[in-house]
């Protein structure tokens, strides 16, 4: 099994005039899951975006080995078109062959003809997970993945994270609500707040 890793050393993040956190180090290897906790506005989303390479850190460096997938509050699915078509775009781009199966897995295969704008928050979250599964990446960065999901959806996400980490993947979950992760690692951003 190939080993992946995700490391960050001495990270600091600044948004506008405010330094959100500094001195943050983390090392994750294949099979690791990390729960990033902390109050609203402490920088959980910014940390995930830095790890994804979408935001430049104010200081420090990140490295990763393996492909990165991100779920945040935006679904990146065109609201005007049917869910199936919107997912198909990303699936085609990722060269995914069993898109149908991932829709069934997330319980949204009944919704594929409905335009994305009519979907509920939870349904959109499920669609985002279907997109992530189609992508088949090694490192998952999940920003508040449980928002809007019902208990069945939460259980599903729990199981998916376990499967992913069990298969050698890495998962970082930013969430202000407790979440049951396989390895039980947690990082409280409050400790690094300025």
């Amino acid at each position: 099994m190939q080993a992946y890793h995700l490391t960050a050393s001495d990270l600091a993040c600044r948004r506008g005039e405010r330094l959100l956190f500094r001195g943050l180090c983390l090392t994750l290897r294949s099979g690791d899951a990390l729960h990033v906790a902390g109050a609203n506005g402490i920088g959980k989303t910014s940390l995930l975006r830095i790890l994804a390479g979408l935001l430049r850190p104010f200081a420090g460096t990140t490295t990763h080995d393996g492909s990165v997938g991100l779920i945040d509050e935006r679904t990146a699915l065109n609201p005007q078109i049917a869910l199936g078509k919107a997912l198909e775009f990303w699936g085609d781009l990722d060269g995914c062959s069993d898109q149908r199966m991932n829709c069934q897995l997330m319980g949204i295969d009944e919704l594929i003809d409905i335009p994305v704008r009519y979907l509920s928050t939870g349904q959109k979250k499920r669609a985002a997970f279907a997109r992530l599964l189609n992508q088949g990446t090694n490192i998952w960065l999940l920003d508040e993945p449980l928002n809007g999901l019902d208990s069945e959806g939460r259980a599903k996400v729990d199981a998916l994270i376990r499967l992913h980490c069990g298969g050698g993947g890495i998962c970082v979950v930013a969430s202000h609500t407790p979440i049951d992760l396989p390895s039980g690692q947690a990082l409280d951003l409050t400790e690094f707040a300025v």
Partner: protein
Amino acid sequence: MIGILLKRDLVALMPGGKQGGSILPLLFFLAVAMLYPFAVGPDAQLLARTGGGVIWVAALLAAILPLDRLIAPDLEQGVFDQLVLRGISEEIVVAVRMMAHWLSFAPLLLLAALPAAALLSLDAESLRTVLLGLLAGTPGLAAIGVMIAALTAGLRGGAALSGLLLIPLAVPILIFGAGSLSRPDGAGIALTAAISLVLVAMAPFAGGAAIRAAREG
């Protein structure tokens, strides 16, 4: 990969269809050509002399009508973030978007220039010059449009700003494009094409940088 991106952009921007772009730019273009003779009077000579310029101004304005739908929705929905995660740079996305934008308005505009020329009583020679000029100039207009859309995507009140930004950028194309009508040789068209090429070469990089700046902001 470029094919998949282009297909998605074309579906989103082409006129007609359920989720497609509107046919408004085209109607706008024809409306100007229809209303102009009413405004200046039915003097065929005056119309023929000024008609080419009017077609050019109408084409320019029609090209910027869909600007707010070019980049901003994708930026809001996080599409660019997901594309970057897949190793597809903003430059490629903007280049493909520019192609789709051009395809969605220019061919129809060239067709609509035929009835417009009839309404403005242009002769065959002027019509030929206008069509060639538009063919040379519209890629530049598409490039300007995509650049401005990217620059204003993250801003409140971006639509008002895009109108202001467009004027200085579009003036060179307009001067040489419309100017080619008053010269017998093809120099004006050649210069229009040259400006278009420069803008087309520049747009992916300018647009890509603007989208990155909007994301980090």
